[in-house]
């Protein structure tokens, strides 16, 4: 029904030379982005927006990008996508897990528009999914953290107990443990993606209880500042480089680098070669970048970390390689076996050695 109405209005619009539709018909390729936070959040959305700008830079006049920030997940997201599709966007990136069902719903109404949904698992002919293997970066962080800690206590600020975050904790823990068998992880769940004051409090609490390395899976730089104030505490940048806190406390970082993927997909739509698929790239493909390892890290540790990075990038080593057991002592991966993507995607258990319960 809506398509018929759409065609009707398209004819009317051609007469009226409506600005939007005229552009949509034979101008540049219009690419839409739906962001979950403000582009100034300094983390998740910020990096997606950087990639949007990279797309503009790459294609110049041939693309027009539009975006909407701070779009709540649910009805508002559906409207935002519909609005973009109606006004002529041919490719829409929806950049948060919670947009999954809305993306599928809207995609069903606009079969000619391609959708790319970040971190989801539902696909259709015109909905592809993509995500990044951040856990690869966590492995490197874990290694450095294990080597650097003097108290053998590492603090971890989690947002919500979802597979993405749990995967990161496990990956970091496994590699910290390899580097330093005495290491112990203390996880604090902030129950927010973004609340700088609370993140600062969480970091302070961890530091005061003797954790001298802080990993974070929340987006603000507040934990970095708390660590800087405390002195002698190491941190890692999350989502973006947070280089302003280098060389101490920030000793390295995981950077989300969506630009190559976005450019590739935009090009595919231009060439008419776009197909729905599931992309899950890591360090190797450049979707996950490791920020510069600062001078605060001893040379040999840095060398080990870089070697680990190369091994992961080349595919020679998988961060989840057996033998590994689950927290309850049951077997998970046998010697030499690597975790399959299905298990990783829905990971809801800790590996052996981690203490505390996952709240789920």
């Amino acid at each position, binding site marked *: 029904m809506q398509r018929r109405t759409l065609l009707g209005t398209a004819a009317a619009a051609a007469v009226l030379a409506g600005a939007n539709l005229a552009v949509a018909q034979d101008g540049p390729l219009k690419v839409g982005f739906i962001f979950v936070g403000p582009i100034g*959040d300094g983390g998740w959305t*910020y990096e997606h927006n950087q990639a949007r700008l990279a797309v503009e830079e790459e294609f110049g006049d041939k693309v027009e990008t539009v975006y909407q920030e701070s779009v709540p997940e649910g009805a508002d997201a559906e409207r935002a996508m519909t609005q973009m599709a109606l006004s002529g966007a041919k490719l829409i990136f929806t950049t948060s897990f919670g947009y999954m069902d809305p993306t599928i719903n809207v995609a069903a109404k606009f079969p000619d528009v391609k959708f790319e949904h970040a971190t989801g698992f539902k696909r259709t002919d015109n909905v592809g999914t993509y995500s990044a293997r951040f856990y690869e970066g966590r492995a490197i962080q874990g290694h450095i953290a294990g080597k650097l800690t003097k108290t053998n206590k590492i603090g971890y600020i989690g947002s919500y107990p979802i597979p993405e975050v749990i995967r990161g904790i496990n990956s970091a823990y496994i590699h910290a443990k390899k580097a330093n068998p005495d290491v112990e992880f203390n996880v604090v769940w902030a*129950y927010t993606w973004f*609340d700088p004051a609370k993140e600062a*409090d969480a970091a302070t609490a961890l530091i005061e209880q003797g954790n001298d390395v802080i990993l974070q899976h929340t987006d603000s730089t507040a934990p970095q500042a708390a660590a800087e104030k405390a002195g002698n505490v190491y941190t890692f940048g999350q989502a973006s480089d947070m280089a302003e806190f280098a060389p101490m406390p920030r000793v390295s970082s995981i950077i989300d680098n969506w630009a190559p993927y976005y450019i590739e997909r935009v090009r595919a739509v231009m060439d008419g070669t776009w197909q729905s698929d599931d992309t899950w790239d890591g360090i190797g493909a450049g979707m996950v970048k490791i920020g510069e390892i600062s001078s605060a890290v001893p040379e040999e540790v840095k060398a080990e970390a870089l070697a680990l990075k190369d091994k992961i990038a080349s595919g020679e080593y998988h961060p989840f390689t057996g033998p590994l057991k689950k927290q309850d002592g049951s077997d998970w991966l046998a010697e030499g076996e690597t975790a399959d993507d299905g298990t990783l995607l829905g990971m809801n258990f800790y590996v052996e050695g981690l203490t*505390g319960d996952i709240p789920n």
Partner: protein
Amino acid sequence: MDLSVISPAVLLASLMVAATPILLAAIGELVCEKSGVLNLGVEGMMITGAICGFAMAVETGSPLVGFLGAAAGGALLALLFGVLTQLLLANQVASGLALTLFGIGISALIGQGYRGVKPPPTTRLDLGPLSEIPFLGRLLFSHDWVVYFGLALTLGVWLFLRYSRAGLVLRAVGESHDAAHALGYKVVAIRFAAIAFGGACAGLGGAYLSLVRVPQWTDGMTAGAGWIALAIVVFGSWRPGRILLGAYLFGGMTVLQLNLQAAQLPVPVEVLSMSPFVLTIVVLVIMSAGRGRASTAAPAMLGRVFHASS
């Protein structure tokens, strides 16, 4: 689980820091409400203060100038509320909420150029040997100056409301604006001053977040602190001492729950996360249950429109 890792002195010291932004904003709102004006725009004024302070501090390199700018920014936004509610006699509840909406928007607009910038550090006060005293040194003598300023402000407002003539007039305006007007006091002018003071304090609270607690600028960074400040004023039944208590209780619970989590206390996270709110309610119920019906301490004219009919 090992609770011995939580040091009481450290915990108390960090709760003082955590409570400071709420305390500053709540004390400002107290003065405003004492004059009979209910300004629900604390969140908007805080975040405006946060960005104004941040921008000023970055531009001048001086945190002190930053805090002054924050106070000015918060007060300016508050004056907008003043014009609406005092001159144009608009509804205070709605105007306050609109102020919050406007403040969050305008602050994000101003802040566009300040993302990812690091502000000049606000140093700890060097109190020399005092901060070396065991326990008390860490607890009382190792903070930045804003923490002490918050305490001094609380004391100052208490003295002002209780002992000064101007404070008496302010309270009179809040209790019965018609009577105060009949006695020849300029109700609107007094309320304007109180509103501006409230805005300035909220601005300071916001700047404490952006310049000291976090310190960085990100959109929406106050994340609801203004609402808590409003609740704390009610919690403190419009008395500075109790507001201090409330801010410390709330800040303390926030810090404590994170500490308990860090110490791996086997209690569901949601229970710990909601504990500051639940505990605040419980304490308020206990406090209010002990008193008779008549003793709602709210200023009688709170939220009422005043128009001097001539």
